[in-house]
């Protein structure tokens, strides 16, 4: 196993743990997106490019977008906006 693979695997485990530990749902989804991206690189290393393409398109693309829309539907992102306005701190937009 090369150093690169080790790094990727460690990153994967860190992502998986921090998704569950993150308090903010929006952050969890973004971490999950990066998890999927790294997973697709690992699929390429494991010599299955078919899965890699699918993982990148479905895992990092469509699923996360659907998660975002669901958060919007259950009004979980709105609170974030009002926080921004009240405290005056400008974090990165959506």
């Amino acid at each position: 196993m090369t150093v690169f693979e080790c790094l990727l695997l460690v990153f994967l485990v860190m992502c998986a743990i921090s998704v569950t530990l993150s308090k903010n749902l929006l952050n969890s989804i973004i971490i999950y997106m990066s998890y999927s991206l790294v997973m697709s690189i690992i699929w390429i290393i494991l010599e299955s490019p078919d899965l890699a393409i699918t993982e990148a398109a479905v895992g990092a693309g469509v699923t996360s977008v659907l998660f975002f829309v669901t958060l919007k539907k259950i009004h979980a992102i709105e609170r974030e906006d009002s926080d921004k306005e009240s405290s005056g701190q400008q974090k990165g937009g959506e």
Partner: protein
Amino acid sequence: MGRKERFESWLNGERDPYLGKVEMKPQKERLLPRTLLKKYKKDHEEAVAQVYDMTNNRQIKYFEKAYRILGVLGCCLFITIMILTVSYLPPIGVADKPVNNEVPQRYIEDGLQETGAVNIVTGMILDYRAFDTFGESNVLFVATITVLILLRALPGHGGGKGKEEADTAKEEARQEANDRIYEPKNDVILQRVAFFLVPMIIIFGIYVILNGHLSPGGGFSGGAIIGSGLILYLNAFGFSKTERLFTEKTYKGVCFCALTFYCFAKSYSFFTGANHLESGIPLGTPGAILSSGLILPLNICVGLVVACTMYTFYVMFRKGGF
């Protein structure tokens, strides 16, 4: 009352076929003396305060501690079992592991001659195991229908309502479900980026679908890529642009045609294969775009279904309908 009307009224929830018309009688309000009410309220508040008194309630304390400890223990146990299982798996690249039987051997050795697909994975999923893929496409279709049932912005179809009232209720439901009204529209940066990216994403998706039998990829991944491209386009330019090319009718037509074609084509090929007949579908030269018999059209079918499904999911979540 005709049969059809009865069925319709049952479908609308106005009538139970066994009990007759469903009716609720207004009940009299139960009045209590004021002192008793006050006492009840006080009792209730005391009970709530005792139950949710986190600092003094021993049960809650113990429960929270036990919950955390048991949660960590459960996770550790699960991780241990999984890692033990992985350690018992045969190492990668060993010749005599149990998965290396005659099935993959045949796929690898004869796959190119029998299916004509250079990419053996596609040859497997769209030729040897085409019915699995057919089921997969149908699962996607059924999932869309389920999402439609759950999320569609229903027009108010109460029985006694007039048409105008129904229209306003429908409009309200639309407004409620259509959360795009609260967003900034016509974002210039997003539109510029989408202007360059969307054609490339969609062309890449088409390439992945059409080259499914030659290079990695295929119907599912290509369809997902096209679907994401469409979602990006919708985000940048709004519903008015996408509705010119993609409406509910398009979705129905495309999905129905693709699934039906898939079903008939594969039924024909399985029928001829099982009866040792000549299917009459030329396999072509391996490596050419127009080769490998039915795999290319089947790939296109799966790609269309997947792209439409992904896009429809998103539209359902955003607007609750087309």
